[in-house]
Structures are given as C-alpha cells and as structure tokens.
C-alpha cells in the first residue's frame, strides 16, 4: 500500500501547488479576444446543472467567459442523469456533432478517440498556452490523459481527490445522549446500532429510530476497507503491486458479505437498503430518526446537519458529523478519487476547429477558473480592506440563483481545488475533513487507457462480470443465496467468466501506470 500512499501524496501536493499559484494571481496566457470575427459562434454539448431546477443556458458567468473570448456559445445541455444514454448514440452516428463535446465517459477503452471522432490536441498545443501550462504543472494528470498512441485528446475537468470524499457520519446528538464516543471498529459500531434500536433517542415515544441510513452504493466505501478490500475500485493493487479483484477475494469478500448479511438479518441494515435514496435520508434527518449515514462529505453541513432545528449556518459544530473510518481485522481507510471527473474533446470534423480549440484553452485558464470558483466582484463576492475575498450572503441564501450563475460550472473544464472548496463550507466542516478524512484516504485504482487488445478483452468480459457481481452481492446480503452453500459456486462462475483474463489486463495496466509515474 505504501506505493499508493506516496502516490496520493504526490497527487495532493501537485494539486495544491497548482492551486497556490492560482490564488497568487489570476492569469490567462492567451490573447483576448480569441477572434476578431463578428458573430463567431462555438457549439458545445455538455451536461446541465446537477440541480434539476437550474438551467445553465444563460448562466451569467459562462456568458462572461464567452464575452471575454469574443464568441457566442450555442449550448446543447442535457440532464446529467441521462447524459450518457442520450449522447453515446449521437457519437455513434458521428453526424452533426458540435464543436466541443463533453464525453459521456472517460473513454478508457478508446472507443471515441480510436474512431477519429476527436482531434488530437497535443498537435495544437502552440495555440493552447493555458492548457500547456496546466499539463506542465500536473504531470500525473498529463500521464493519465496520454493515450496509448502517445497523443493527448482531451481537456479534463478535475475534482479534489483526497478531501471531501464519501465519509462516515454520525448523529452527534444521539452519540451524546448515549454517552459514547463515535465507534471506530466494526464491533463497537454494531453495538451502537443495537443501542439505537433499543432506545427512544428522539424522545417521541415511538420505536421509529432507524439505526443507519445508507444508500447501497456507499456500503462498499463503508465496510469493505475493514476487511482489507477496496471494493469501490473493484480492482485494486496490494502493497506488492499485485492486482486483485475485490469481489473475487475468496475469504475477505465472503467475510464482508457475511457481516452485511448479519446486519440485514438483525434488521440493522434495513430491508429496502437497495433502493434507499438521499431524499429519504434527508427526510429522516428532518424527523430526527436516524443515527448513522455515509455520503459525500459535502452533504454533511450543507444538507444533513441543516435539517436539524438546533443547527444554524454559523454554528461552531455540526449535528451530522464525519468520523474516522471503521476498522476490523484490517485498519480502515477511505477510498479517494481519481482527479479526472470528465473530459472534453474537440470534434475532428468541426469547421470551426481552431476557434473551438482556442476557446477550450481559454476555458482552462486560471482566469476562467477564478470565475468558476469565485464568480464576479460585486455579484458574488466583495473584497475587504486587506484584499481578502468574501462571498456575499445571497450565495448561501439563494442556491438556485447562485448555481444558475454557473458557479463551479459542471459543463466547463473547471478544476476543483481544496482551498476553493474550503471557502464554501463551515469552519467546523473544514476541520473535520482535515482531522477525520484526509489522513485516512487511500488512492483508488488508477484510470489508464486500454490498448486495443485490452479493450477487446474487458469489453468482452467486464460488463457481464460486473452484472453478475452486483446481483450476487444483493442476493448474498439479503439471504436469497446462502453464503455457505452458494459462495463456492459464485467464485467458480467468476472463473468461468474469465476473471483471470481480466486480472491480467488490469495488472498490465497497473504496471504501465506505476512505471509512468515512478
């Protein structure tokens, strides 16, 4: 594990450095406006806001960027939840595509780039000064963006990797009532859940306390590390650089499933865990009904704690508060994230290629990043006598308006950073992240481009393997399948499904990544 720890440290350092220089002064290396032509337009296909009642088509900040660049943007914005389903058929037909395309996935199998849909950008770095500077500053990101043929095709949108990731959160009101510290081991945790079930913690005289409320997607984050598994990545490398597939780990994975099956049978993991969603959990917080949840750290102060009457925006501590990961036989950890969250490509057949490339470059510039993060002076922030920026109150009071400006633009190559996130959150939340999350983060399995042969093999096997694993996980947890009787057959079927071939592919990819980032 040492190797990945060091690696994540390097990534963190590199990102922080990038951020530090961004804060020093806003700058843009390209000449503005990008074109002198009247009425120049660029068409962009991307996702719309994650807030379903916000439309980014007329977002003020994005318009500002277009104005500075001297172009008009023709947006095609599609709801994020159906983005991949709507866009991949468009890409398959290869017709009438816009100039700039936000890809429906990270193209790790090189489906899009090998079909000649997207323009290789490394051949245009001379007109992309901002992007060149970014790549120079972020060698690891550059490494993961370099395709097997040596070209760079995409401009990334990046996220924070070691902070504000999914984290275990306790209802501190209940912990205090029970007079116990936040559990850090599986055994203590289960005891805590049992106590919740037995005690009328919200004092309404009804046994309506739900010990834990976890969306099923977070179960692997929460419990698998205690069994020594990185089930979030699925494939992971151990300390010796050997790649494993977590759902194929005969003992550890079985122990993990046995544990969850136990929780399920005891009613500590609710019957409907597979379909539980965030809205339901929020409602439970509002009714003071639940003791534990697990979600992206971001929700801790802005969503969950905010449901409690006792919590105010300027409170010095939260109600739903993050804690250290649970440990079992293995020390717990949190699974971090790969830095690249989305990629943007230039349509190789665009009649407007040069301008589109220049615009994408400008959208990467630190000047643009500053707009995504802070917005504009007088609109979203003010500068005090010492020259420090402060967000105006409307930013926190009127989410719809604030998001509608295009802040943190999900449809642009925006680069998240830790300091830029810190300023948006309550002080206790920032501290909580430094104390309980950052020290425990482990880097996920790296995302590496597949060679054509590897893509062929994983295309053939991985989807079916994933389907099989998903349905069996639920079957074993709920007891539809018996862990004693059926687990060996499950492992045998995985072998039948060529898990061995897949492990070879992932091993080769990991080795390539390790060699490239040494």
């Amino acid at each position, binding site marked *: 594990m040492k190797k990945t720890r060091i690696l994540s440290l390097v990534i963190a350092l590199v990102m922080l450095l990038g951020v530090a220089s961004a804060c020093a002064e806003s700058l843009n290396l390209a000449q503005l406006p990008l074109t002198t032509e009247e009425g120049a337009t660029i068409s962009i296909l991307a996702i719309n806001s994650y807030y379903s009642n916000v439309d980014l088509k007329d977002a003020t900040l994005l318009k500002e960027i277009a104005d500075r660049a001297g172009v008009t943007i023709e947006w095609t914005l599609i709801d994020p939840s159906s983005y991949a389903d709507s866009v991949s058929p468009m890409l398959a037909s290869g017709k009438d595509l816009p100039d700039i395309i936000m890809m429906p996935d990270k193209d790790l199998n090189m489906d899009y780039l090998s079909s000649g849909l997207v323009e290789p950008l490394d051949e245009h770095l001379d007109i992309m000064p901002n992007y060149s500077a970014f790549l120079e500053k972020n060698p690891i990101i550059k490494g993961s963006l370099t395709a097997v043929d040596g070209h760079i095709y995409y401009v990334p949108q990046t996220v924070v990797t070691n902070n504000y990731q999914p984290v275990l959160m306790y209802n501190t009101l209940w912990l205090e009532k029970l007079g116990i510290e936040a559990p850090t081991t599986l055994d203590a945790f289960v005891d805590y859940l049992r106590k919740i079930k037995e005690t009328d913690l919200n004092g309404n005289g009804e046994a309506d306390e739900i010990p834990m409320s976890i969306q099923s997607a977070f179960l692997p984050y929460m419990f698998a590390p205690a069994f020594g598994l990185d089930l979030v990545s699925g494939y992971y490398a151990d300390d010796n650089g050997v790649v494993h597939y977590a759902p194929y780990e005969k003992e550890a994975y079985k122990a993990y499933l046995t544990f969850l099956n136990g929780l399920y049978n005891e009613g500590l993991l609710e019957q409907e865990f597979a379909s539980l969603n965030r809205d339901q959990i929020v409602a439970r917080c509002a009714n003071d009904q639940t003791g534990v949840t697990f979600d992206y750290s971001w929700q801790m102060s802005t969503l969950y704690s905010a449901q409690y009457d006792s919590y105010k925006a300027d409170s010095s501590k939260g109600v739903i508060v993050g804690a250290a990961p649970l440990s079992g036989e293995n020390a717990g950890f949190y699974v971090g994230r790969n830095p690249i969250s989305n990629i943007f490509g230039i349509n190789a057949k665009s009649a407007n290629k040069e301008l589109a490339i220049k615009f994408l470059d400008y959208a990467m510039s630190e000047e643009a990043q500053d707009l995504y993060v802070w917005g504009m002076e007088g609109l979203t922030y003010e500068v005090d006598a010492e020259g420090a920026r402060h967000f105006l109150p409307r930013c926190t009071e009127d989410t719809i308006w604030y998001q509608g400006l295009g802040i943190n633009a999900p449809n642009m190559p925006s680069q998240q950073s830790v300091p830029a996130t810190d300023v948006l959150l309550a002080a206790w939340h920032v501290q909580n992240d430094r104390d309980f999350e950052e020290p425990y983060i482990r880097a996920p399995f790296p995302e590496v481009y597949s060679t054509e042969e590897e893509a062929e093999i994983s295309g053939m096997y991985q989807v079916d393997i994933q389907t099989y694993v998903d*349905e069996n996980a639920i079957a074993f947890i709920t007891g539809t399948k018996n862990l004693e009787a059926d687990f060996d057959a499950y492992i045998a079927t995985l072998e039948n499904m060529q898990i061995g071939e897949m492990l070879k592919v992932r091993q080769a990819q990991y080795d390539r990544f390790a060699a490239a980032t040494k």
Partner: protein
Amino acid sequence: MRKDKLVGPKAPRRSLGQLVSRDWQLMLIFLPVFLYYIVFSYLPMVGILMAFEDFKMGSGFAGLFTSKWVGLKWFNQFFSSVFAWRLIRNTFLLSFFSLLFGFPIPIIFAIAITQLRSQKFAKVAQVITYLPYFISTVVVVGMMTNFLSPSNGIINQMIVKLGGKPINFMSDPSWFRKLYVISGSWQSFGFNSIIFVAAIMGIDPSLYEAMEVDGASRWHRIVHLILPSISETIILLLIMTLGNLLNVGFEKVYLMYSPAVYETGDVIATYVYRQGIENHKYGYASAVGLFYSAVGFAFVISSNRLARKVTGSSLW
C-alpha cells in the same frame, strides 16, 4: 396462399399505369402507411450488418459498409456467455406466463359481465376495469413500488397487521414474474374483454330463448352456446397473440427490475439495451437482438401455419 381461396373468373391483365389511373385515390391513402414501413421498418434493417461487424463509434451510416467483418464472433460470444440461457429462459417464461394468465381472464370476465342481470352494474364494472389500460407504464410501476414497499407500503402493512413478516416484493427474484403478470393482467383485462363482449352480444337472441324453452341452466348456456359461438374469435386472437409471444414489454421490465431481480427479470431486450446503449457494444447488441428477432419471426410463421390448419383462416 390460403388453401380455401376462392377461384373466381380471371381478372383481365392491367398495366401498372392503368391500375394507378384507376385506383390512385386508394393508393394515395395507402402511401403514408407504405412510407412508414419503408422508413421505419425496412430501411433500418441495413443495421443488421452490424451484427457481423466490428462497428466503430462515430463511423455512422457509412461505417456499416466499411467496418471490419467478424462473421459470427458476436453470436459465439453471446452463446458462450453465462447469461445466454438465463436471458432466453426469462424472456420466454415472462411471455408465456403473461399469455397463460393474461389470455383467459378477459374471456371469463366478458362472459360474466354479459350474464349479469343488472345492466347498469355491468356498464360500471366494464368502465372501471377498462380504465387502468390508459395508465402509463411508469405510473403503474410507481404505484407498485409504493404499494409494495416493505416499510410503508399498504400491502406489507396489512401483512404485518395479520402477523406476517414484510416481503420485499420488488427486490425478490421469486416475485418478479408474478408481479409482472398480475399487474399486466390487471391493466389490460378490461380492455381486452371488449372484443369478447362484442362477440357474445352478436349471438342471435333467439338461440337463448330456445335454450330457455328447453330448460337449460345458466351453466349449460355458457358451455353449449356462448363458448362455441365465440370459439372462432378466441382462436384467432390466441394465434395473433402467439405471434407476439416474445414481445415482452421492454419499458415495463426496465422500470421494474434492478440487479437484485436480474435472476428472473433480465430479458433479452433489456440486456441488448445495456450492452448497446450503455456500453456501446453495438455489434454485440445487434447480434443478440437479431437472434431475438429471428426467434420471434419463427413464432409468427409457425403460429400462422397453425392458424391455417386449425381454423382455415390465417393472416396471409
């Protein structure tokens, strides 16, 4: 060709021009239908080529003719997949049970409703049973999810009140087919009974009177008069449904299923969707889809043959 086709006097040969000038109005009316089938059913069949090719993203329509030919590779891959048998079984069983339970209920209902003395009640019952047909599938599945929820669904609350343990209907594989079939029948039996009600109404009233004079009971009336009178309709409809046997409703399965019930719920159509649209394996998805269509085609042909044998009439 129908065996019992009447042989009339030979029609005089006419040229195409003569036919057009004589029947152009009829042909004009037919034109949109003709175009519809050409554009939406026949032209897209070129896409079948994909099932034998390594189709690349973004190569578009031209890619159909330039992609690398891989022969039966995708078919081999499908049949060697651990899911192949399960998908075929699920698709077939889901359709089979839908037919088995969905088909007789409208007939029984139609007979029952025509035997009612109170015409008013019969009308009301007919309207009530017929309305669910117009509820969209999304809403029906939403209702099921709500009513069947283990924590606050009305069905499970009743089970708990009666001393049972709540059942997680929507994520239990053993319930998937039952729910699919029951909700499907509930939705369509009223609507499907209309044609049988009409057939029963068409029976000559003097036959009823004759039976009454002979002292036949209600049961006799059903068995010896009504059923034989509508048997032709029943058989024809049965055969037409048989042809559609493999056409399980993709939307409904897609809305109802989750990885927890793939064991019984995953059908060929949803698998093709996941492979083709979600994982952009267009060649593979086309191959599976083509196999599915071929089986469906065989069903249509054989049910048509069967119809000709049994009833002497058929679709073509």
